[in-house]
């Protein structure tokens, strides 16, 4: 069903129906609930308020029926009557029960890892569960290990966000307080060692926070993962699960992965992690590489300018002399002949190498992370969380100046920057 031009169209939804729509970048669609109630990925829409969407795929679900008013041109839209929402809500009900028990006894609430191949709706489910968590009056932590889309912050970083309120339907992530570790790649496969380290760091800090704060502890953790589930990706998933001390694993749309993880869980010391299988929602859209790339650029633009271009980033100029830019990489393995006999390299060692100013032109248009490292030793740099991200807009080799686009007008918190391979041409 295509909606008409500029005129408002009405769309009635029966109970348990979902209105799915796509909005092309550059166009905007406004939705208003005229009557009834509905939610967008678990966040409740308020009757009578107009929500506008730009360049996105969304779904409005109603448990009890509603009438929507749609203004603007949807790319494609349809109503689906078959959704896995009941099973999603049932999962939430189980988790909620565990949270309430944990709150009463002061123990830790469920640590839920959501796994599945690419394009199965993992991040939508994570978002939904986080919104339900907040709507049930619990607090908790949302963790995103998916480098590719960076839905909570920017692509190329893993992050954890305390959840107290439902995520804003339109406004995005401006009001969140994320903790982020920089990886600098959008592909998990190209940065396994770094990603493992970053995930461990997040896990460690989240655990410390939960030790201090009983409300978040009882709420537990919701973890979104990347869609890489075979080979080294599977190993990575196991690493993430054990680092976060996961006790519920949700697998969407992959029976093989479910069986693998169930078998693995049985080998764990009791209590075994609980492995749940959920159906993939029919509304999930398969994204091509170019559309993923486009979405990443959209995320970066949102980081600096806000989803509705209401934020004002700040351009700042730095002398080559004052800043220290490092690149992260796996140290080259020492030759076998240099190792003691019988010794094997267990884990890749990661080193931070300072980028010499002569190579700064290569950084043009790339994203750098500002890390809150106390010193520029390799250990400090690798363990430091990020304070924010800057975009290199100009490298002036004659004046020895770097021009950076920073999100905030306040001076850069530190001058320790980490480079990556994420590029963006600005606007």
């Amino acid at each position, binding site marked *: 069903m295509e909606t008409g031009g500029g005129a408002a169209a009405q769309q009635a939804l029966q109970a348990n129906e979902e209105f799915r729509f796509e909005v092309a970048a550059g166009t905007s669609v406004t939705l208003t609930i005229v009557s009834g109630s509905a939610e967008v990925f678990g*966040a*409740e*829409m*308020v009757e*009578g*308020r*107009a929500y506008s969407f730009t360049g996105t795929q969304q779904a409005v679900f109603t448990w009890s029926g509603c009438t929507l008013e749609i203004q603007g041109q949807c790319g494609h839209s349809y109503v689906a009557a078959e959704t896995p929402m009941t099973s999603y*809500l049932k999962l*939430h*009900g189980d988790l*909620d029960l565990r949270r309430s028990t944990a709150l009463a006894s002061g123990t830790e609430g469920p640590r839920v890892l959501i796994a599945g191949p690419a394009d199965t709706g993992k991040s939508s489910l994570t978002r939904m569960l986080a919104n*339900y968590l907040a*709507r*049930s*009056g619990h*607090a908790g932590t949302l963790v995103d290990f998916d480098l590719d889309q960076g839905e909570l912050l920017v692509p190329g970083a893993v992050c954890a966000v*305390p959840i*107290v*309120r*439902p995520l*804003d*339907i339109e406004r995005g992530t*401006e009001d969140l*307080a*994320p*903790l*982020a570790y920089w990886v600098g790649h959008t592909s998990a496969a190209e940065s396994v060692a770094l990603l493992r380290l970053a995930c461990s760091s997040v896990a460690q*800090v989240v655990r*410390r*926070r939960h030790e*201090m*704060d009983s409300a978040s502890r009882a709420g537990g953790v919701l973890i979104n993962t990347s869609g890489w589930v075979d080979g080294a990706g599977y190993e990575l998933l196991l690493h993430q699960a054990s680092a976060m001390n996961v006790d519920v694993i949700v697998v969407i749309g992959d029976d093989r992965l479910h069986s693998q993880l169930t078998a693995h869980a049985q080998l764990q010391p009791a209590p075994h992690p609980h492995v749940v299988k959920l159906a993939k929602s029919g509304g999930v859209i398969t994204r091509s590489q170019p559309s993923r790339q486009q979405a990443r650029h959209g995320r970066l633009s949102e*980081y*600096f300018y*806000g989803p509705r271009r*209401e*934020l*004002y*980033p*700040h351009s700042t100029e730095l002398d080559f002399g004052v800043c220290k830019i490092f690149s992260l990489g796996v140290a080259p393995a020492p030759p076998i002949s240099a190792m003691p006999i019988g010794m094997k390299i267990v884990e890749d060692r990661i080193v931070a190498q300072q980028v010499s100013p002569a190579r700064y032109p290569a950084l043009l248009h790339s994203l750098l992370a*500002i890390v*809150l490292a106390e010193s520029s030793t390799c250990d400090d740099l690798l363990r430091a*969380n*990020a*304070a*924010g991200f800057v975009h290199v807009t100009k490298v002036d080799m004659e004046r020895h100046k770097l021009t950076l686009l920073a*999100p*905030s*007008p*306040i*001076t850069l*918190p530190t001058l320790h920057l980490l480079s990556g391979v994420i590029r963006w041409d600005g606007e």
Partner: protein
Amino acid sequence: MESEQAAASYAESLGDLTFNSKPIINSLTMIAGELLPHATAIVRTIEQRVAQAAPDKKLPVMYLLDSISKNVGGAYVDAFAVRLPQTIGTIYAAAGPKMRTSLQNLVKTWNGVFPLSVVQQAADIVNGIAPPPLLPFSECGAGAGAAPASGPVLLAPSKPNARPVSAVAGANTETAARKRARAEDAASAADATVDDLKSEVATLVVRITTHMKTGLPPDLQLVDFAARTMALYSQILARLAPTSADFSHYTAELQRMQRLHHDLRRVVDGEDPTTCGVRFGADGRDELRKHMDFHFRRNMRGKAGGIAPPSRRWMLPLNGWLKWQFDESEKAESNKAVISVFDAIAGGTEGFGGEPAPEAAPVPLMRAPSEVSRLACFQCGEPIEMFFDEAADDWMLRDAVTANDGTARICHSACQQG
């Protein structure tokens, strides 16, 4: 119950209004606008405040009454009008000569705001012609709205306000006095013929179009006009046969006005402040208030007048994140790394328009000149740190003073020559 909660929290906010402060009056007016469905309860709260406040603190509350009537209007005007002579009488009785002059000037501006007879009565009182009626305040009879119902899994919403003006008529918060006032309205409305209503609506439409043509930004008055026009259209429609040509014409006009009203509210209020989908339980009154304040501040950011350009903040350091607690209060809003000018400058009583005196400050701060984006000290050539102060709503220079050689040049306070 919602009305009582709204009134109680409003009474608390009223406590801040102890001197004549435009920003406080403005913000209390905005809050009153948001609490429109509870107008009756809010009006009683304000009237009680006038009666109970110390004599020297009554006048600011009167200015608030004035501001709400003129900027929000609607149900507030009706509700204030019921007891306006008493209210004015209470304050006039306690006023000194200076305050009496202020009251006289105030009442002069009420023509066309309140019904003529009420303004006349008030004018007589403040001009000493009529004795102030000293009737006791009757008990506040705010109606009992049902408490928000709880769903089985998820908390029920509290949407105490955010109803357009026209919808207030059906609110279950009417007191006897309000009912009487409305009965009179209804009586006069019943007498009005369709032609009377049509001419009234035409006047309003002209005022709206005139305002729109000037290109001025929409204000609360315009929203009120649109709301009144909508109400009049509905009244006209009620008197017309559904088959007549006029009927379809006015139906279309009503829809057009509803859209306009909706758009205007979005522009004037930003997003609807209470309707972000966050629900509060029955005991969440304080949280709800904080949440509303948070929306209010966020909506004010980047608005005309306030030049605050909102930006994404730097993320918290590790220890800050570990201890991070959800807090929507003002304190949490401002970045703690930035010193507020009001912390630094003692005795800056000039208010928002005044220039604070930088020399008196422990950390000398001054407003940054508007035309520069970066600035170097004219003595040492080092850059002067520029930051955005949310409390002052302006860009500030840290540790900077103007040169004492009579020029407007700026230098570090340490570089200033004795």
